[in-house]
């Protein structure tokens, strides 16, 4: 299988689906000649033309609303928000409108649309360009929230997202864009709402999303040399969340750690933990159920502070060791 980057995998999914389904089109800011802030849509304007690679004014709320209107008429819009932080400009349209239409209208409207949004820190873009806001989106019934960690998942989930009849928030991580992995050239989908055990292990279950999956896998590799076997679960979809896979795993390992970059307070780790300790699996748990998350601060500009604001591999290793060795 060819090795391509996370960014290329997403582009490939968009490209192939636009070839396959003429109802699919892209809209967003600077996605044409410029290729988007991260170059993800580079080359697509030349391939598909201005009608299907629609550059918009800087009007995020109306970008999302335009996707809604077009979706109601049977199109399959894929909107890009240049940075996830800007989703806060669109939440009325996304949460009050798109997410609720199918329900409010008694099942008689469907809103098949995808909104792409790169989140995460690490690029020195400071507080307004580095947030991980997926936990907020997860609180809105009617939305689907996808959050891939690998090129393979990114392509397969994007194809599923575009073909799904509901409004999908497709949350990317800007630092993952350059990471590479094997991706089939052909058409394949990954089911929405199904987690994946990225690495099996008997000693502890660690649930992590996007970049934290990669970091946790590195730590797991290292720890296994010391005989600590970490099971790493990537929910891949945060809403709907595949709690079953997580519950089964925790029932086996008896220990749970949730790792995310998003700020800890109000973060999605709470959702995972509450689902576990509220279930019969509670009886199988041997240690406090912990989370390791971003600090409850805006992301600082300075690179030292920026790193310190979110979990690093050393933090993950330390937390896992403490849990497995019963020091917590």
């Amino acid at each position: 299988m060819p090795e391509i980057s996370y960014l290329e995998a997403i582009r490939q999914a968009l490209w192939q689906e636009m070839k396959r389904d003429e109802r699919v089109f892209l809209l967003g800011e600077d996605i044409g000649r410029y290729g988007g802030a991260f170059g993800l849509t580079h080359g697509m304007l030349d391939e598909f033309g201005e009608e299907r690679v629609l550059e918009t004014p800087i009007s995020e709320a109306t970008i999302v609303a335009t996707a809604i209107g077009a979706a109601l008429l049977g199109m399959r819009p894929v909107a890009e928000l240049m940075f996830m932080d800007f989703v806060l400009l669109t939440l009325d349209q996304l949460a009050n409108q798109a997410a609720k239409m199918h329900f409010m209208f008694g099942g008689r409207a469907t809103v098949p649309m995808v909104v792409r949004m790169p989140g995460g820190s690490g690029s020195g873009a400071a507080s307004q360009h580095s947030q991980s806001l997926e936990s907020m989106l997860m609180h809105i019934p009617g939305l689907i929230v996808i959050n891939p960690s690998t090129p393979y998942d990114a392509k397969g989930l994007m194809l599923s997202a575009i073909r799904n009849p509901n409004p999908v928030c497709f949350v990317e991580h800007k630092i993952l864009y350059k990471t590479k992995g094997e991706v089939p050239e052909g058409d394949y989908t990954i089911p929405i709402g199904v987690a994946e055990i990225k690495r099996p292990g008997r000693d502890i279950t660690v649930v992590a999303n996007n970049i934290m999956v990669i970091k946790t896998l590195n730590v797991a590799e290292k720890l296994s040399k010391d005989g600590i076997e970490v099971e790493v679960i990537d929910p891949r979809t945060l809403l709907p969340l595949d709690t079953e896979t997580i519950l089964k795993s925790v029932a086996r390992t008896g220990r749970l750690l949730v790792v995310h970059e998003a700020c800890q307070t109000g973060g999605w780790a709470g959702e995972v933990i509450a689902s576990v300790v509220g279930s019969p699996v509670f009886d199988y748990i041997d240690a406090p159920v912990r989370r390791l998350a971003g600090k409850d601060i805006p992301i600082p500009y300075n690179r030292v502070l920026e790193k310190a604001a979110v979990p690093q591999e050393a933090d993950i290793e330390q937390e896992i060791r403490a849990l497995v060795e019963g020091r917590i």
Partner: protein
Amino acid sequence: MSKDNGKGSEKDIGSREQFEERVKRLGMSDDSLIGLYRTMSTVRHFEYMADKLYAAGKVHGTMHLSAGQEAVAAGISLAVKPDDYLINHHRGHGHFIAKGADINLMMAEFLGKDAGYNHGRGGSMHIADFQSNNLGANGIVGGGIPQAVGVGLALKMQKRKEICVCIFGDGAANEGVFHEAMNMVALWKLPVLYVCENNKYGMSMDVERASAKLPIAQRADAYGIPWACVDGNDVVEVYDAMKTAVEHIRSGNGPYFVEAITYRYFGHSKSDRNLYRPKEEIEDWKQNRDPIMHFTKHLLQSEIMDEGQAQEIDVQAEQIIVKAVEFAEAAPEPDVSTLMEYVYA
């Protein structure tokens, strides 16, 4: 078309000749004129019945009645085609009826019944009928305005002849999305007819205290969108403006903006005690500028309709509403076992 600044003022209905010359110029048949009367009468009866039901404690939830504004809905509906799209706002009963919605299903939804358009999930503020390209009302003021960009865009991409009519109020025109949407429909020359139903108040806010410059329609100049501001209580004038607008749009010239000056008789919603507007003002509009009365005088004067027909139409309209209430009251509540349905498609 008058660039009425939005202030109400007495006006006589004008001479028989003027009226007949105008409907002739517009090619309006007697049937279509009587049809307008029927539409307005039906809306009026629906709204007064809704108020009665509410007073009788039969409605759980809020509602926004359009009595007094019937000419806007009627005038639009005659100018567009049945398969044109409608994006409605919270004060939307009249527009739904004018677009030909099934009044039984509307009433059932209003009473929250499973037989309603939205299976009782939406209520007055969210009635929609996707079969008839009626994309629904919106509880978020201005929420539908930018969605019209997407509908217009899809129509253009799909190379279809239908247009999208998007209704909103004077207050909604101050939401940011208004600006974003006007700019985008103009940039992309989309087939969207924006209709600002200016009933002179938001909830209680006088349009003159809410909008820096009037008429609201002149804001369309900033985007190079052609516009008109008309007497929204003169159904023929409304039709005249909408006809021009629709022709402009359907011939591929892009969006159009029409502001219709009108007035609502009831309070904004259930909680309104009308402290923000003088009783005299309300009375003035009811006595001197009522759209139905005004139009009736014309039809009688021009002998297009006689008293008898008028009465007959009113009685039929009332019967339709009464039947709808019977249907709705008899209809069952949604089954609680269906609570979790319709969240995802």
